[in-house]
């Protein structure tokens, strides 16, 4: 028993080294697949997984609008534009509504508040597949034509929740005496909001908007069921991946991941770690 205790304790003495190795391993686990993906996009081989030498020919071909292994760059471009359009509309609507919702939840008590708060959390936690299919059934029943519009409606339904949760967290640390001071000095509600409250909670709204944008831009499952014949980037990409690994898919994948990670890194740089 004593020997076991000593062994256990000595493992914990040397803990820092073990933990460092473990941490390095997890970072490797997180980034190795991405590194391999980016490397293989420069691979000079039709069978995209075995390394045959460096080339940029897939990039040049795609950028010139040629189809590489069934990947049509024009279709990808259209899908990207749709994704951006949907995500932009989603961010605008859900940032406004979500912030208002966060205020209501933070400032007011009303009957059924606990239940309502639960409902606000639900779009974040229920499986996307359930949300997507239920929206599909709903749009079918009331007879709305599926398309970009219905995709935006669906995305706002979960975007509001993400924004509200993030902004509400910021509001909890908010010093309300500042608002009272502004009102005492003669500002009305809107002026107080515009010149006192908004500047103070801006980082929260920004973080919420960023999250809503990412969730909308990256969403596959909900969109897949409610967008009808249109494409978004994830849906286009899913279709490509279903047909198998190919140099064209590698290039599109590498471009997507580099672009999104760069954007997020910049946002995190300005914002501090945000999640």
């Amino acid at each position, binding site marked *: 028993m004593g020997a076991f205790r000593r062994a256990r304790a000595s493992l914990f003495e040397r803990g820092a080294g073990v933990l*460092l190795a473990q941490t390095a391993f997890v970072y490797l686990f997180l980034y190795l697949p991405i590194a391999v993906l980016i490397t293989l996009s420069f691979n000079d081989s039709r069978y995209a997984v075995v390394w045959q030498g460096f080339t940029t020919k897939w990039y040049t071909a795609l950028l010139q609008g040629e189809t590489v292994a069934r990947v049509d760059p024009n279709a990808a471009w259209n899908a990207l534009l749709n994704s951006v359009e949907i995500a932009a509309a989603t961010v605008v609507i859900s940032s406004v509504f979500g912030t208002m919702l966060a205020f209501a939840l933070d400032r007011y008590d009303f009957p059924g508040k606990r239940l309502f708060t639960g409902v606000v959390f639900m779009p974040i936690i229920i499986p996307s597949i359930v949300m997507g299919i239920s929206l599909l059934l709903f749009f079918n029943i009331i007879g709305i034509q599926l398309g970009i519009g219905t995709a935006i409606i669906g995305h706002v339904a979960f975007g509001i929740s993400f924004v509200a949760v993030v902004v509400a967290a910021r509001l909890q640390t908010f010093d309300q005496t500042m608002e009272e001071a502004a009102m005492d000095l003669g500002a009305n509600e809107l002026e107080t909001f515009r010149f006192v409250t908004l500047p103070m909670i801006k980082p929260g709204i920004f973080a919420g908007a960023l999250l809503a944008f990412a969730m909308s831009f990256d969403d596959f499952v909900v969109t897949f069921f409610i967008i009808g014949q249109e494409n978004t980037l994830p849906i286009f*990409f899913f279709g490509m991946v279903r047909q198998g690994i190919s140099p064209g898919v590698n290039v599109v994948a590498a471009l997507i*991941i580099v672009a999104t990670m760069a954007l997020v890194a910049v946002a995190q740089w300005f914002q501090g770690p945000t*999640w």
Partner: protein
Amino acid sequence: MGRDSNNQASGIDAQLVQRIRRNQWTGAVVNLAPSAFWLGVFFLAPLAVMFFFSFGERGAFGEVLLATENLGLQQYRRFFVPEGLSMLGAIWTTVAWLIDTVIPGTQSLASTQPTPYVRLLFKSIGYGILATVVSFVVGYPMAYYIGHIASEEYQNLLVVLVILPFWASFLVRIYAIQLLLSANSVLMSAFAVLPFVEQGVTLMNSQFAVLLGLVYIWIPFMILPVYSSIEEIDFTLQEAAMDLGADRFEAFYHVIFPQSKPGVMAGSILVFIPSAGAYVIPELLGGTDSQMIGNFIADQFGSAGHWPLGAAGAFVLMGVMLLSIAAYQRGGGELA
């Protein structure tokens, strides 16, 4: 309209505006209305429609019958109760089958198998639990390192490195896993050096691939909450414990770990829920033996064409999620 009456009207308007503004409910109603409308119409109403469908019946041509005489619990029965068994029989069969599956070496207690849907449900829950346990075992030490041992100046960078993949495209990262696991990839060629691994073998379309994908995608959700609770711990308590005679392990186990428990619980629920309800990961990485309840639901609304059964499956899955959240809250966890 004359100027006077206009003034008078605006005077009354102003009074009205004043009264509305002073009313305690105005702010709440104005701020709540848009979101309440949106969530009510485009979230709750669709769920209600789906719930209604789950009581329906499938017609001969795959259409959904929702007339009064068709409504009932038949889809839930089909989901849970094997043909020819009573309710009690179904419960016993399921429990016996679970014991048989989970505990190795037990003699087959169950005389019949539960329905394929029940087996699929528990398989999905099993995937969720496994993904959670693996994420915890792998993620906790790392969160501990970032939160306590790493020097302050690198802490933010290390955290951002955990967050980055989570913001980057989900599908692209699944595809990256595919690249690693498919035959003749870098990783698989490296494994082929080992004596018992054959050249050209693949790990794709397997249960292992699905589990790896789940952990790869959701592990940041374990690391981040654990990190933020470890970061807040006062580590002088550890020294105090050791001064009082605890060794390092005891100090960790009795003093530090309990304080990081809120993070562990939040991380567990954040990993378990999306893992058990996964659809895309088994679709892209799994084979026929590694499909989950999410794929079953999608199939019922797609190729299998049995909407009421699919709707019932969706609400069973939602029930599992609600139960796990209830367990989480009972254990003292808070949402957000």
